[in-house]
């Protein structure tokens, strides 16, 4: 683990959260020795900041087949970075490596480093469960837990990680407000989450991941199953959420990337072609392949 000094340091990070239980109480955790001592940071701190994510030589495999072929990429804190590229270019796989969901698939593995701020999430001292608490994920299809009510869906992340004590109702309400869903569901929190419309379900899933208070949220084509109005709501939400989290969004919809993203990365065949301010990628890309893709000549 190197400290290159270029990534912004944020005081809100809780290093204890990222360590395995056995090490959590040691005064100077091994994996975070280089880090500045955290300020008094509660999980309910109002002005929570996102963290930067840096990929260094990331490669991802399914069995023998290499899907992500060495990507170096920075996701800046509290910015929205869109990943675009044709189907099968490895953008979803790459994103799934960031919160280590990739390794859930049998035979899948990743190489290289993923730095959350300065912590390598693949470090052997780092607990995968803690990584996923810090880096939330929203999936392509809205998937509320079918056996649970709206309230329980949002509370699920807290309960499942044994943090359901304290002001659970307050946390659920805050998460639903942040996801722009509170007004619509306040009167029917005990109804099943699966009874909501597709767009509401997806905002419920966003609320669910916000409830565990992540520093980064990964969104894997979050609007591809939604109609344009529901999509617009999610996009407005993304613009608000970046105040407090870093957002990485995979999208097939280039207008969407142009609307929501501060920076855009273009991927092709498992490699990063270029990354830059969204405006630049869509108007004056430096690579001819990017230009062909964003102008609709292929993909």
């Amino acid at each position, binding site marked *: 683990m190197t400290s290159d000094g270029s990534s912004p340091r944020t005081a809100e990070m809780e290093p204890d959260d990222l360590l395995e239980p056995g090490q959590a109480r040691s005064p100077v955790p091994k994996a975070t020795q280089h880090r500045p001592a955290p300020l008094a940071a509660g999980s309910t701190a109002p002005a929570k900041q996102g963290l930067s994510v840096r990929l260094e030589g990331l490669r991802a495999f399914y069995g023998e087949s290499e899907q992500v072929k060495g990507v170096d990429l920075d996701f800046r804190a509290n910015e929205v970075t869109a990943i675009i590229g044709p189907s099968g270019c490895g953008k979803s796989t790459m994103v799934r490596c960031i*919160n280590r*969901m990739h390794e*859930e698939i*049998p035979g899948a593995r990743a190489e290289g480093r993923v730095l959350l701020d300065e912590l390598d999430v693949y470090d052997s001292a780092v607990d995968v*469960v*803690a*990584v*996923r*608490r*810090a880096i*939330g*994920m929203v*999936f392509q*299809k809205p*998937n509320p*837990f*079918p*056996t649970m009510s709206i309230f329980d869906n949002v509370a*699920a*992340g807290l*309960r*499942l*990680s*044994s943090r359901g004590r304290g002001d659970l109702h307050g946390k659920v309400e805050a998460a639903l407000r942040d996801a722009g869903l509170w007004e619509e569901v306040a009167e029917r929190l005990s109804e*099943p989450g699966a009874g909501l419309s597709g767009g509401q379900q997806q905002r419920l*899933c966003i609320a*669910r*991941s916000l409830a*565990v208070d992540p520093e980064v949220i990964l969104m894997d084509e979050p609007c591809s199953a939604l109609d344009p109005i529901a999509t617009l709501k999610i996009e407005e939400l993304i613009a608000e959420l970046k105040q407090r989290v870093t957002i990485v969004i995979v999208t097939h919809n280039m207008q969407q990337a142009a609307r929501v993203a501060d920076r855009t990365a273009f991927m092709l065949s498992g490699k990063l072609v270029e990354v830059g301010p969204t405006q630049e990628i869509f108007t004056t890309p430096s690579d001819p392949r990017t230009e062909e893709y964003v102008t609709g000549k292929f993909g």
Partner: protein
Amino acid sequence: MSARETPPDLLARFDVSPARRRKDKIARGGILAATILALIPLVLIVYYLLRKGLSSWSPSFFTTDPTGNTFFGGSNIGGIKSAILGTIEIVALASAIAVPIGVGVAVWLVEYGRASWFANIVRFFVDVLTGVPSIIFGLFIYIVLIVGTGSSYAGYKGSLALSLLMLPVVIRSAEVVLLLIPGALRESALALGAPRWRVILSIVLPTALPGMLTGVLLAVARAAGETAPLLFTAASTHATNFNLGQFMNSLPVQIYDDVTSPTTAVVNRAWGAALTLVVMILLLNLIARLIARRSRLA
């Protein structure tokens, strides 16, 4: 048809030849005939059960134990109380053994073992176990726990034999249901930072519960109707017994004993007991359906 005639050549293009219509009719008729043929024995079984069984039903039939007095004109032969309670006790213990183990094996196969060589070996042996005749399970318990230990018959030994019989049914049905749970559900729970065991306990199992219940009750129903594993493990007795360490009566064994009797009244008791067994299993299925429906709404 409206006033406008369809041009005959156009109609011909969309018509089906008479030969094909005929073939279709024959095939449909064949399938219907096969369905009716399969229903005939089913209807006959229910008919005879009701006709012969209902006549021996009476309040005392369910509240008295068999007396064993079967040779003297059938006076006061007693009812089947000990058999009903024995079946419930034996099957309850068998389920208490087989269901947790079976669900555990299924969870391991689906969530952890997946396609590993060991998981595949387990699946293979579970399939083999499914095909083992029920008397072999009885024989196995008889040799190991009765001949092997030099001890006597006991209700719990019958339960063990039945639990072996139930185990593959529970494992296979639970595995099928667990495989139906979308992977996205597990992923979204894992992505919230939930440990895998919490995901299984709080998300996967509750979602799978209604389906699993159906499989479990299928296994229970099968076990409740088995005679062979009980014959030389739990044996039979007349008195009602709540000690699973003792000989224990059960409905299938009582039916087996009664139908071979020369006394008509005792044979009729077998019909009554058979009808009771069928009704019990039917009730069990109804309860399962009700529970399944309610949990789907929750």
